[in-house]
């Protein structure tokens, strides 16, 4: 092994970086149809990066995959403590999968805290790789281990692999001009190398990535590559790891096409840029940094060559204010935020409702109320999106169901905003935002047409024959008002948040006019053309499970389990929360029982019960994590039987 490591060091100039490493074939290889791996360590240990890299390797190998990053809100939480543990779970398979998986088959624990925080999720029989170097008496006491769990028998029944990851990494990097502390930092790459060997992952992508990430620090790049290779070689040579595993590409799971791995926030950012292209309007983002939405601001700010303007505002209110100003000027305007930001933006959303201008409000939901759980997921902003404004201020709501679906949801939200001249809420969440999955890259001709027509001239003739422009004269089909942007001669007009007279848009306090305008704004939103909800019901079930947003994966996985066990259950999933699809009432009434699992205390269920007088049952979880398929399946089974 030493010779291999030093040879890697000699290659540190990068001459062979990118070469695929292949097992020598002297060890047992077993085939698996799917694997769930969880990397866990201190929040400074680089677990997210490690998980990201393993995901990229897996994606380029062609497995289906789903990921669940889980990290504390603190950037560097106290080292070695339970709250400081950061983890990344990856589920990959040779067939199509829907969730990041319930229980890991493999846990990589970089320290005692990571073991303690995660062992409860790991079933007996699973493999556990621990970094023994960190299992000092003090570190173990810090998290309440009186005796070493590696020795006291508490891990009996697991396949425990005690590996001195730190020592091996430092040893592998001894020829580099690095302090011990610097060398230790590459231990996550050692672990990644080991896991890459275990699961036959392609390695050239990670080596290229490291080279480019540390392009300005070639020594660090070389050290990380050396650690990565040392980890791989360790698996290949040490007897502790007798078996490696193959998970074949998920060829049959994917329709023909070109694929990439994509996270929800990235897909959403791309969806916005694509919408701007399809609408032929410049994209304007007004935003204030907030977890877990900031990545969209970061991503869009990189694409100025698409004519994208990103404005980091002084606060949430200015973020949406600037976006609304840009919308008045004819941009495809967006503001991105999370729940607390939506609360601050409420008044401006109300103004946008009154002004009837297109505006996308992207809410990457997180645990609430108040600051809540910034890095954890929840879907408890539905009623805020629906009702969180003064007065009757209806806003359409669109929710993506998977990370890749954030792309299509952004396009759909843009379609509604532009067609109906209205603010639209796009409700993603932390799980979708940071999770990733393979995405079939759409062909240009598959993208929706979104072009808009600005008002060009007068749209009304007065009794005396004068041709005038009325900013609130509506399209009879959509009830949308004309979008007349500054710079258009003859259409100068004034709009505002005070109630407007129908047609002219002039200030009006007339009672009958207000009643008419309130009802008309509502009718416009109620009349939005949304596709019917599809029901998956192969066995004429009596129970329907209805979901929305990111619960799609777990619900579908649970439904599959139930059907595999011989149960009958129908499934429907909503993309449009306002207005609901026109067939929803009929669908709901066709079943004896409707169950609605949500990561809140029953917000969709409240809307469904109020709207359709259906005795919908809620199944709720608000622990900051997505549902687990097994747990959901059990709950649904109870509903079927009950």
């Amino acid at each position, binding site marked *: 092994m030493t010779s291999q490591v030093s040879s890697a060091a000699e290659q540190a100039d990068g001459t062979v970086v990118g070469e695929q490493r292949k097992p020598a074939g002297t060890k047992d290889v077993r085939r698996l149809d799917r694997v769930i791996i969880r990397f866990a360590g201190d929040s400074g240990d680089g677990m997210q990066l490690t998980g990201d890299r393993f995901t990229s390797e897996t994606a380029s190998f062609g497995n289906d995959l789903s990921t669940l990053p889980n990290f504390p809100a603190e950037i560097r939480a106290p080292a070695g403590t339970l709250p400081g543990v950061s983890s990344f779970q990856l589920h990959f398979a040779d067939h199509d999968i829907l969730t990041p998986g319930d229980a890991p088959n493999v846990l990589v624990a970089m320290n005692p805290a990571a073991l303690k925080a995660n062992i409860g999720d790991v079933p007996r029989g699973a493999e556990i790789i621990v970094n023994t170097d960190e299992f000092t008496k003090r570190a173990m006491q810090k998290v309440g281990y009186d005796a070493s769990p590696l020795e006291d028998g508490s891990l009996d029944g697991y396949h425990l692999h005690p590996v001195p990851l730190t020592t091996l990494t430092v040893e592998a990097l001894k020829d580099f001009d690095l302090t011990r502390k610097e060398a230790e930092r590459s231990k996550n790459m050692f672990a990644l190398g080991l896991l890459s060997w275990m699961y036959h992952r392609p390695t050239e992508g990670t080596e290229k990535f490291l080279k480019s990430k540390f392009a300005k620090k070639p020594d660090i790049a070389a050290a990380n590559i050396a650690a990565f290779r040392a980890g791989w070689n360790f698996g290949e040579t040490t007897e502790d790891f007798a078996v490696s595993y193959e998970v074949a590409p998920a060829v049959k799971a994917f329709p023909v096409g070109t694929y990439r791995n994509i996270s929800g926030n990235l897909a959403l950012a791309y969806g916005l840029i694509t919408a701007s292209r399809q609408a032929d309007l410049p994209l304007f983002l007004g935003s204030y940094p907030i977890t877990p939405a900031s990545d969209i601001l970061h991503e869009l700010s990189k694409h100025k060559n698409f004519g994208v303007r990103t404005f980091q505002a002084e606060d949430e209110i200015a973020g949406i204010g600037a976006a609304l100003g840009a919308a008045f000027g004819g941009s495809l305007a967006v503001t991105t935020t999370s729940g607390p930001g939506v609360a601050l933006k409420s008044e401006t959303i109300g103004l946008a409702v009154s002004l009837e201008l297109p505006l996308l409000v992207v809410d990457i939901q997180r645990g609430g109320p108040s600051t809540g759980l910034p890095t954890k997921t929840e879907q408890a902003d539905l009623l805020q999106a629906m009702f969180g404004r003064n007065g009757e201020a209806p806003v359409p709501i669109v929710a993506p169901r998977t990370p890749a679906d954030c792309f299509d949801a952004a396009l759909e939200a843009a379609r509604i905003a532009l067609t109906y001249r209205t603010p639209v809420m796009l409700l993603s969440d932390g799980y979708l935002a940071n999770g990733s999955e393979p995405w079939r890259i759409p062909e240009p001709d598959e993208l929706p047409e979104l072009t808009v027509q600005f008002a060009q001239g007068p749209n009304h003739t007065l009794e005396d024959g004068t041709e005038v422009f009325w900013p609130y004269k509506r399209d009879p089909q959509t009830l949308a008002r004309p979008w007349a942007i500054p710079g258009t001669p003859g259409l100068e007009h004034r709009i505002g948040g*005070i109630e407007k007279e129908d047609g002219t848009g002039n200030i009006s306090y007339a009672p009958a006019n207000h009643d008419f305008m309130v009802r008309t704004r509502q009718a416009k939103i109620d009349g939005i053309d949304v596709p019917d909800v599809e029901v998956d019901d192969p066995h004429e079930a009596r129970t329907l499970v209805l979901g929305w947003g990111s619960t799609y994966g777990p619900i579908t996985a649970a439904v599959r389990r139930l059907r595999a066990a011989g149960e009958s259950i129908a499934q429907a999933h909503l993309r449009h929360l306002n207005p609901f699809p026109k067939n929803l009432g009929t669908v709901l009434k066709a079943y004896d029982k409707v169950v609605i699992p949500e990561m809140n205390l029953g917000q969709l269920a409240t809307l469904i019960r109020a709207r359709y007088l259906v005795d919908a049952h809620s199944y709720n979880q608000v622990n900051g994590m997505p549902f687990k398929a097994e747990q959901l399946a059990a709950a649904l089974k109870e509903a079927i039987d009950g």
Partner: protein
Amino acid sequence: MAETSTEGTGTIEALSLVPKAEARQSMKDFKSDQEVRWCPGCGDYAILAAVQGFMPELGLARENIVFVSGIGCSSRFPYYMNTYGMHSIHGRAPAIATGLASSRRDLSVWVVTGDGDALSIGGNHLIHALRRNVNLKILLFNNRIYGLTKGQYSPTSEVGKITKSTPMGSLDAPFNPVSLAIGAEASFVARTIDSDRKHLTEVLRQAAAHPGTALIEIYQNCNIFNDGAFEALKDKKSAEEAVIRLEHGQPIRFGSDLAKGVVRDRATGDLKVVAVTPENESEILVHDAHSASATTAFALSRLADPDTLHNTPIGVFRAVERPVYDTQMAEQLDTAIEQHGKGDLAALLAGGDTWTVVG
């Protein structure tokens, strides 16, 4: 001194991207068909007339002018201008106008706000607009009272103000809008008075020519809830002694026979008003609105007595050129295209790592 032409202003760089009017305009072109609904006698009428009277001088296409306001009496202003306009929500006009101006550089964007709108509920947006230096002209109507909510004290009311919400007198120290703006890195700060149309127009002229954010504080009389707040500056006799008319490049002298002047106190470095004598005449401060340092402009903004308004400077305190936000934003877009080419959507969506599934 900046542009003072009364003809078309094709030379104003700040407005070079805004299309020009095809025909000569008059004041009535800028009057909308809406009935003006301020209280009779309100100072807002005079400001509206001054702005409508000044606009033809800019010679800009009317459709490329936008007035954005917040909430309050002054914020009804856009309804009366025959341009594009938005009457938005309380305090947010600078934010909304920032989005508009930075995405549409072919527009001349004006913000109309009041002391409550700009300095209380919208204080944050105001200071950030000023520091960013977006191409906005902000008209801050300061009447030192809340008018539309019927007479509560405002963030510019003098301490001890007896109002409906402060029957025993207000407790909070007021903002000085000019000091605040200078502190917020404003590149153009001026003060004028509603009733002095000539001065108001001249300040508007200089503001319009300024590239970047211009803040104009306009002392405006609310004859219903705070009548006579600026009487000391309006009454011809008292005004002569109270008002200091700042003109770039001119010694700062005022009073009858220009008997008073502003000098620097050698001991403290601060400014003070003295009687001009042959001995000290050479020490009278010459106003330099374009000074790189904001120190003297700030000191001038502190000269006035907040209660009596004696020694109140009006005119342009500060007008300096610095990078304009929307210009730089546009330049970054151009640079990005130069560096990476015009965005290629297919390449973006594909990214670096893809794999292909064939049938």
